[in-house]
């Protein structure tokens, strides 16, 4: 209170009052007054601990080691997951290279037909009788032409052509001042008559008449001979007669298709596609090629130069199909190699389609000899392809597996000794695979403890595992699991090895696989804590925390520690505490000789080994001043917990099991000013 008063104001009159009063009274007294604070002993009562620890909290605090089964009344389950290791199983997916040839003959081709040839047949030639009237203007009597033979000039577009089809156009142009009619003529080359024409219609002066005659079936040369005749009705009206005027006969080939020619060849284009079968067992929807190449050779057997474009739509890069353009000169060949790394392949039927277009601009004004059987040909080859990733259906393949790993032993295993027998359990071999195919795993799972003194193995039968995560479950019923587990007792394995094989896609199904795909193996223990402990002893040493100021104990004269324990766990537990100095020399042992042992009986259990009702005990521990001094000087506490199952039966635990510990301290403390 004085402290509060002093804090509330500077003048502190109350304090002054007290001082004055003491001084006043003391000054008036005969007795000498030397003010000081008295000393006394006080009995303090502290709550040290009041805690109920359920096994559910224990589970929550150890999520990596414990879990529970709510469907079995919260049955406590020791759950531990140990990673064994992983192996790479996606590195050998490939297809064997194949090659194929393809080609195409040119076939019927066109020939240039731009040339028009013609010949003038004069009036003087066909009607010599009118020669006397030359230069006069006079009526012209009807007359018949005198037959005339003339040679047409040669056609420059070709020298020789074997026509499969074509047309010959003959045009008769009347340049006379009188009409003509009943024109008949015969055209022939060196091989004979080409055509015979009787044109009966009248052709007025200045007009023309045409005849289109199909050709084909033989070879034609470029020289034609005409046998020309006809008639004119004359003119009753006087006309100017010029005998140098006449009739022009013109000839032109049209729409010529040839199988052979010595001719000028116009531009032409041919195309071709073919399928190259690579591996019909690999039905690849999509694959990313990690290595491989494509090569092709194109030969041109014609006298014409070609530009050849090759397209392979199923090879793509960045979404763009493969396309290459190659110039191949007349009667020559070209070769091209393509690196396919990074290309994407689609091959759902195991084949690759190759497509090319060959184009030429023709021979121009040059006459070339060309036959329909002459070819554009090619060879295309795909080397062995390795895939970084494949989606589709691949052939089964088998890889060897060997992986091992060490795990840290947990504290419970390290510090618990005695005989521990497990009555149930489950081991789950988890396989997490990044391969998109199922895999058939078989082999042996071996384990050993830290020293190697204890080892055991489990046979893993061939088991089909589905991606991405599947597991093989070992139970006491389908394997020798209990033998495996109890080989280790309270010391679970610290080292695992799994050796065996994995057959990828054993059912030849569709899926996916990548070069870096792995399978990770994990051993998971799920052990319902149905166990029997005989002579279990858990020991550990803890340092007395620096934050606990044991100097506060120096005024303790004596103390009594009262422990109220309620145990509903099916374990009988005893505890021993040894306080030691920094060199682990014992300073105080609890319980002291002659004191009650610190044992809490196990809860009563039912036939299944579950606790039914708790046991209770109150313990009182008295400490004198020397004991308190020993605690003050202590640096470490070594504690040992003795655990035994009731009547050495198999017991089980539920998350609702608990232990309640109330600790309270009655301390006699000496109060003295410093």
């Amino acid at each position: 209170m004085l402290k509060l008063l002093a804090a509330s104001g500077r003048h502190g009159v109350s304090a002054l009052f007290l001082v004055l009063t003491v001084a006043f009274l003391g000054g008036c007294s005969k007795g000498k007054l030397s003010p000081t604070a008295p000393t006394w002993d006080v009995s303090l009562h502290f709550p040290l601990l009041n805690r109920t620890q359920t096994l559910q909290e224990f589970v929550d605090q150890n999520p990596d080691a414990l879990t529970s089964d709510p469907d079995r009344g919260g049955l406590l389950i020791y759950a531990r997951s140990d990673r064994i290791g992983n192996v790479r199983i996606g590195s050998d997916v490939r297809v064997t290279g194949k090659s194929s040839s393809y080609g195409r003959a040119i076939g019927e081709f066109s020939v240039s037909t731009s040339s028009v040839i013609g010949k003038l047949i004069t009036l003087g030639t066909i009607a010599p009788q009118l020669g006397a009237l030359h230069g006069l203007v006079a009526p012209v009597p009807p007359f018949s032409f005198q037959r005339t033979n003339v040679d047409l000039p040669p056609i420059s577009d070709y020298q020789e052509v074997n026509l499969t089809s074509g047309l010959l156009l003959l045009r008769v142009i009347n340049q006379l001042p009188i009409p003509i009619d009943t024109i008949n003529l015969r055209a022939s080359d060196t091989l004979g008559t080409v055509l015979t024409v009787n044109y009966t219609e009248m052709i007025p002066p200045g007009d023309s008449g045409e005849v289109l005659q199909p050709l084909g079936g033989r070879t034609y040369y470029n020289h034609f001979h005409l046998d020309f005749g006809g008639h004119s009705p004359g003119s009753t009206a006087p006309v100017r007669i010029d005998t140098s005027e006449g009739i022009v006969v013109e000839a032109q080939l049209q729409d010529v298709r040839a199988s052979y020619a010595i001719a000028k060849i116009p531009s032409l284009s041919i195309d071709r596609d073919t399928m190259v079968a690579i591996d019909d067992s690999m039905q690849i929807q999509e694959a990313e090629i990690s290595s491989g190449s494509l090569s092709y050779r194109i030969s041109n057997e014609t006298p014409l130069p070609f530009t050849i474009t090759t397209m392979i739509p199923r090879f793509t890069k960045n979404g763009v199909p493969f396309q290459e353009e190659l110039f191949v000169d007349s009667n020559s060949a070209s070769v091209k190699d393509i690196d396919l790394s990074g290309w994407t392949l689609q091959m759902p039927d195991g084949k690759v389609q190759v497509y090319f277009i060959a184009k030429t601009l023709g021979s121009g004004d040059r006459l070339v000899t060309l036959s329909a059987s002459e070819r554009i040909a090619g060879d295309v080859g795909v080397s062995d392809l390795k895939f970084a990733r494949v989606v589709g259906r691949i052939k089964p393949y088998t890889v060897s597996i060997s992986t091992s790993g060490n795990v840290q032993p947990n504290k419970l295993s390290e510090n618990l000794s005695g005989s521990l027998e497990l009555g149930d359990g489950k081991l789950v071999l988890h396989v997490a695979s990044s391969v998109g195919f199922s895999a058939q795993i078989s082999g042996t799972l071996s384990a050993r403890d830290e020293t190697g003194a204890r080892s055991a193995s489990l046979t893993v039968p061939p088991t089909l595992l589905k991606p991405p995560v599947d597991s093989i479950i070992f139970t006491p019923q389908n394997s020798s699991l209990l033998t495996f587990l109890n080989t280790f007792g309270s010391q679970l394995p610290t080292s695992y090895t799994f050796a065996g094989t994995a057959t990828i896609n054993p059912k030849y199904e569709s899926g996916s696989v990548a070069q870096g795909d792995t399978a990770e193996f994990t051993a998971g223990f799920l052990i319902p804590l149905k166990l029997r402990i005989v002579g279990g002893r858990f020991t550990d040493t803890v340092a007395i925390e620096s934050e606990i100021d044991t100097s506060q104990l120096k005024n303790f004269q004596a103390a009594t520690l009262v422990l109220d324990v309620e145990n509903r766990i099916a374990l009988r537990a005893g505890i021993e505490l040894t306080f030691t100095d920094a060199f682990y020399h014992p300073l105080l042992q609890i319980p002291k000789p002659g004191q009650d042992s610190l044992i809490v009986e196990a809860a009563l259990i039912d036939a299944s080994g579950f606790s039914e009702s708790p046991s209770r005990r109150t313990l009182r521990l008295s400490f004198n001043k020397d004991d308190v001094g020993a605690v003050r000087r202590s640096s470490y506490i070594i504690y040992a917990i003795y655990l035994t199952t009731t009547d050495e039966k198999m017991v089980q635990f539920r998350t609702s099991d608990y232990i309640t510990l109330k600790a309270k301290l009655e301390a006699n403390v000496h109060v003295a000013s410093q």
Partner: protein
Amino acid sequence: MSRHNKEKLLLIFLVFSCFYSGSVPGKLHAQVAHSFKPMPVDVISWGASNAFSMSHELLTHSYAVAVEIPGLSAEARSNVLSLKLLQDDFSKDAAGNAPYLDDAEKNRILDLFSGGKGIMQFTSTLHVFTIGVRISQLALVGGVEDRLFASVSVPRDFPELVFFGNAPGRTYRIDDAQAIDTWLRQYSLASATEFLLPKGNVLRVYGRASFLQGIGLARVMAESMQVFTADSDYSIQASGHLKMMRTSNISFPGRPRGFGWGIDLLGEFLMPNGIQISAGVVDLGSLTWTKDVEGRNVDGSFLLTEVTSSQQRQSFDSAFQVSTPYGTSSRIAMPARLLLQVGYYLDASSRTRWLPGIIGARGGLSQTLTGSPLIPKQLSLYALLDYSPASWLRLGVGPFYGTVGRFGMSSLIELESKTFHFQIGSKNVLGLFGLPSATNASLVTSLFLTF
């Protein structure tokens, strides 16, 4: 002060009084029934203020003017603290060792907390200036006084908790614990008159109105503080609400931080047969602190269920929060008291030949009326045997009992001449002279001159 010095001081007073005795007006024995020297109005019966004493002198004598010489009165009371306690339990022994309190000694200390509380209080009055005049039958007195109140009040549970520890199942309540210091200045104007009633009765009426200035205040109140230890698990539950208040920057002669008013009323009824009855109420009023008053609150509660829990230990440190200072005001009631006194006086010389002068006896009480924080609620009772062998001298002695302060022996000496009026008294003179068992001591003086 040695006994030798005390005796010398008393001798000086006596000689001084005798020197002036010849000039005392010889009217006392010539008056009517109430011609007995009016005894009651003195430093014992009416407290530390001299305004009514001066008024009385002006009314009952023919003085025109009275002036007080500045003086100091002080009183300390406690129901716990005694010199013996300090010597036995709070003083080193001959070897220089601190005393050890065994259970018997601790219980002896606790037994001193009568009424459940341990109280220590101190009051003092500095009579700065007082002057009075008589106008006909009306006496007017004006004055200035500086008054100091200090008290500490602690419930018994607190020392019991400290001495014996926290007994399981027991709740220790430290509610209403308080410490307060107050310094105030009182400007007052008093008036008094007397009425001659039929049958020789006399009624005198006194009144005083005061203007109060608050100079300094410091106060701590534990409105509620409890500590409980559960029997089952020894869990400790503590809660508390404290208020702290103070005025800042106190300096002499003081700057007003609050204002208030005060009223004192008193009536005296004197009968010709020597019976005197007095009644009054003093220190009615209140003082409101408004300037530079800084308040703080301390609130908190705590439940300790595990000493071993570092979390609980850490939360204990922050369980009680002290608020930031805030400006506030506070109204504090003055320590109003009801005064009653009945006395009987007679002329001894007319009854006996061997005893001259006037002799009388009186008894009275003083009861606090309101719950003023300045003085804890208390009752004081006294009886006094007065004897005035001569007109210049009056002596008084008698027992005193206070609920705070316990027993004592009151004493009074009054020396009076025509111009010189001196009173010195104590409610427990034994405490002044170092009686080890004394739990109170007081010294009240009054010296004024009349003309």
